């Protein structure tokens, strides 16, 4: 089981994740239509690039936009969740050992204490996101099964990883297996679910940035105060 999950399944899930998301990004770009979208994407490359860059960058900064500033609870929870969700899988020491073994490459590694903190952050933030989704009428009425599923899918690798981390020696192997399955499931399903926003966030933000940057005012004045 362990050999299979860390052997063939590991490669398969990484491949599906990378190729699937790449495919999503390409399909997005190919599906842009200057006339139907009413954005002259190619005619104003400088304004388009600047608009896209600002539109992405400002939203990646906590409290960098008015929307983030107006909803501080959501902003704090959102960034704790996302920072941990990106940093821990890539920079956990154990993950880097696997990467070094499989691909011969590795990133810098997080100290164990920081990794613990970030992982706890992801799990607690996920619970708060769930509570927010259930308790706010305007969010609850919008939510579908898919939205709850996505939250569970994205959080499962962290919750199981954390349990494995604190598990007794007896329980550890089973939780490790659960953790690997949850992680690989997340990787495999990402391109086919709303988790595709891992790349489509950048596409969509770049598009609206180009829209405002080229057509809706970017060629005039100071540009959009996001």
């Amino acid at each position: 089981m362990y050999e299979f999950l860390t052997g063939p399944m590991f490669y398969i899930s990484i491949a599906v994740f990378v190729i699937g998301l790449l495919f999503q990004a390409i399909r997005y770009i190919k599906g842009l239509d200057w006339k139907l979208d009413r954005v002259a994407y190619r005619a104003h490359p400088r304004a388009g690039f600047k608009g896209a860059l600002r539109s992405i960058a400002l939203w990646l900064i906590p409290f960098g936009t008015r929307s983030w500033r107006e909803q501080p609870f959501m902003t704090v929870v959102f960034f704790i969740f996302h920072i941990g969700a990106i940093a821990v899988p890539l920079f956990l020491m154990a993950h880097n050992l696997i990467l070094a073994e499989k691909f011969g490459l590795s990133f810098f590694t997080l100290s164990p204490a920081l990794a613990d903190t970030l992982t706890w952050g992801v799990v607690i933030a996920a619970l708060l996101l769930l509570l927010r989704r259930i308790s706010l009428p305007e969010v609850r009425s919008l939510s579908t099964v898919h939205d709850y599923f996505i939250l569970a899918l994205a959080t499962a690798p962290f919750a199981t990883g954390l349990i494995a981390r604190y598990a007794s020696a007896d329980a550890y192997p089973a939780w490790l297996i659960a953790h690997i399955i949850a992680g690989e499931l997340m990787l495999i399903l990402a391109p086919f679910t709303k988790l595709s926003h891992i790349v489509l966030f950048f596409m969509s933000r770049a598009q609206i940035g180009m829209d405002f940057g080229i057509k809706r005012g970017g060629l005039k004045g100071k540009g959009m105060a996001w």
Partner: protein
Amino acid sequence: MPEGTLCNKAPVDTEEQLKALLADKGGKTYYHEMKQLDIDRQKLWDTICKTMKSRTKTWLNICARCGMCADSCFLYRINDRDPKQVPAYKVHSTLGEIIRKKGRVDNAFMHMAMETAWARCTCCNRCAMYCPHGIDSGIMISYLRGLLYQQGFVPWEMKIGAGMHRVYRAQMDVTPEDFVDTFEWMIEEYEEDYIGLNVPVDKAEADIMYTVNAREVKHYPEDLAEAAILFNIAGENWTIPSSGWELTSLAMFAGDWEACRLQVESVYEAMDRLRPKRMIGTECGHAHRATVVEGPYWAGRKDGLPPVDSIHYVEWVAEALRTGKLLIDPKKRIKQPVTIQDSCNYIRNHGLKEVTREIISYMVEPGYFIDMTPNREHNYCCGGGGGFNGIGLFRPQRNKALITKRDQILDSGAEMVIAPCHNCWDAIRDLEEEYKIGIKWSFLKPLLIDMVIVPEHMKPKE
């Protein structure tokens, strides 16, 4: 009865059809027939397959349903935070549902979608600024309007408005002769007060080609005179085109994309014919959006720009004040608390937030200008945008929507609102009528006329 005599899927293309629709007061028969109107489900689905590309698909697919757009929507806020007024909800329960059902929706659904598209969204695009994914629900509602228009589920006034553009290339039954005659009549009215006042018609290669809103011709002809007076005082080399003078597009509000193209091409033809250096449009927001911002795309212009440099009236005013073409008598500057209405269509959607403040710096005595909160690109819709002002069926919803702007104005403490946009101007007039808060409202032109220094050669000899 699938197709009504008045309410049907066919666009209005003749004067007779227009008259028949107009004779149906308030659209009584029209809306009655709509209750029986069938849906061409195949055509609806085919249209979606052909016109919904990756941008909109992605918006619908990756929307995290986080509700961060809720508070950005003034209609959500003013309607007691009704979850049904959340922008994402409005899109997913209408356009999203049509797509999930592959077009297999019924008459009752289309009625709900029509109310959502025209009475629960003014396409102000504010929500686009508050969504982490950059999802613009306003654009999707506008797209939905196009689908509803195709199926005949469009408010009576919008059907007429789009028809007017198809028949007259104007939002009202104003012909090129009416336009030129009215303009010239207005010049006659004022030429004794301003010596040498004139309006050059169809002058080739002028510096400015001026375009207007048909309402000015029909209901507010003084506006034409004021434009002429200011251009004359500024010493501009300007002209009006005898055809292609209509800047507005009710077709855009209606979702009649074909009429949008016909309308804007009439203006571009005037540009090609007269080859002016620039086109300047009157104080209207949606008109600027239609002809300058969206129009190039309807006309298939790959650079996304009109044939000649085209600017909004506020840009010209700012420039004229900056360069001294228009000089303001400092004694006559506004000395009462005053605010400005930021029109969504050229502030949020065309970046003109700075020039309007620049104008204020010349026109208002320091210390008297107060911005509304929020303002600039974050400002709220006047409450009557996107066609909302003109739809009788949704008047109660519109009146409620005005409360947002009423309270913004009251909170500012301003006694006067400068509104360089026809739609905003109307909404503010209506909110004063409805709620009587004791404010004044004005376009820029009449205020400028009262405070500019008239050059000696234009002053009447005693």
